[in-house]
């Protein structure tokens, strides 16, 4: 059962931040409520005040700028799935959104709520790590830009200050000759393993320029795995594809997988390797299409 709470409905980021500052631990932001109300219904947490941020204008906009795609934190999963900008410039992101949760959660749940709740079994964070995204945190007195690597601190914990709102996600536009793949696996409601790979080919299209690899869901937070990336960078595509199993093993070792309801550590580590191999094939294919096209 949901206990009583008071609802605040600020119309600016500043007002929202002031409310959070004033009420401290007794208040929480409410966006879609798909995570928050569950926790509150189950009695795992109680907040006296919820700050509904959906009346603040422009926080659900998706825009293309020179350098990046700007995604408002209040965009719902469904909005992002159908956003022409996301579909055209970040097709892997749209594909990921199509498979988040179920239709009703996609309609109501926001990308900001997903990231801020920092539930380990979530998809977007992992992909955003491979995309090299940054997020904007705003409060009463100003805003700051945070690398997505720094955003996730632990399970259910981000680096946001108590009076800060996540307002925007900035995803760099993809260079030519690049590819992105996000693959997940799971048999429960939420994913057990998620693997994301960004790959770019260098000038002649024969060897790997940048690689960014991220693994999520298996441990407390999604993480970039630089050990695995450096195995691929600078190698010819053929060499890199021979090294991909080794990269998978490195990614699995560094992923901090734990045994839980979703599977044993070994099992998850194995799947990390399998998914990375598949992601590599998909990303290379995309790089080539972009070279030829």
């Amino acid at each position, binding site marked *: 059962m949901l206990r009583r*709470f008071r609802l605040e409905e600020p119309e600016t980021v500043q007002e929202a931040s002031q409310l959070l500052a004033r009420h401290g631990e007794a208040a929480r932001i409410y966006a879609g409520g798909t995570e928050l109300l569950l926790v509150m*219904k189950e009695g795992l947490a109680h907040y006296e005040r919820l700050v509904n941020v959906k009346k603040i204008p422009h926080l659900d906009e998706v825009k293309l700028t020179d350098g990046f795609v700007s995604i408002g934190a209040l965009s719902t999963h469904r909005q992002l799935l159908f956003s022409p900008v996301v579909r055209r410039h970040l097709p892997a992101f749209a594909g990921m959104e199509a498979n988040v949760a*179920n239709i*009703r959660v996609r*309609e*109501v749940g926001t990308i900001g709520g997903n990231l801020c709740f920092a539930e380990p079994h979530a998809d977007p964070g992992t992909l955003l790590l491979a995309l090299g995204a940054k997020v904007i945190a705003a409060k009463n007195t100003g805003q700051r830009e945070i690398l997505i690597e720094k955003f996730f601190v632990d399970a259910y914990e981000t680096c946001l200050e108590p009076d800060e709102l996540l307002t925007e996600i900035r995803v760099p536009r993809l260079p030519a000759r690049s590819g992105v793949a996000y693959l997940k696996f799971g048999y429960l*409601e939420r994913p057990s393993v998620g693997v994301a790979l960004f790959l770019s080919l260098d000038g002649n299209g024969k060897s790997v320029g940048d690689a960014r690899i991220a693994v999520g869901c298996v441990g407390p937070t999604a993480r970039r795995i630089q050990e695995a990336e450096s195995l691929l960078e600078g190698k010819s595509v053929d060499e890199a594809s021979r090294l991909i199993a080794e990269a998978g093993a490195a990614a699995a070792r560094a992923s901090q997988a734990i045994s839980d309801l979703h599977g044993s550590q070994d099992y998850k580590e194995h799947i990390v390797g399998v998914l990375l191999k598949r992601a590599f094939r998909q990303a290379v294919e995309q790089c080539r299409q972009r070279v030829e096209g």
Partner: protein
Amino acid sequence: MMASLMSKPRGAQTIPVSFIVNGKAYELEVEPHELLLDVIRDRLGLTGAKRSCDVEVCGACTLLLDGRPVSACTLPAFEARGRQVQTIEGLAENGKLHPLQQAFIEHGGFQCGFCTPGMILAAKAMLEENPDPTEEQIKHFMHGNICRCTGYKKIIESILAAAKKMRAPLSAKRKS
């Protein structure tokens, strides 16, 4: 029913909600924590939507808000302010069943019927954006609606049949 109508403590915050349910306008005062499912069932007496899992997984509580499916078990009623709510009770028109309802009967799309209101409303939302879905697309859209009885095959057949019927007037119009 009376409990939720009357047990308002002094000083509790209330939020005016005017909304349209199945084409009929309502004005209510709700407290922030009241869930849409309870308001629709207990205050409006529309009991088609069911509470089952209570954690947004099963879809038995599905309602359409401005035509889009939501888990009413976890959505506060204030979210319905100024919006259109559709429940299974409002689907038949002038005593005539909606093609989805008819198809579920004809194709054995339900057994106990507990999941059926949610199934039909979700399917309605899907057909509105995709009138000619493939079986795969139906499975993807409907995977968040759980049925303990049918094994889903009959549900998919029912939706395909209804989709075909609902397209018929469209293609007839196109031809003329």
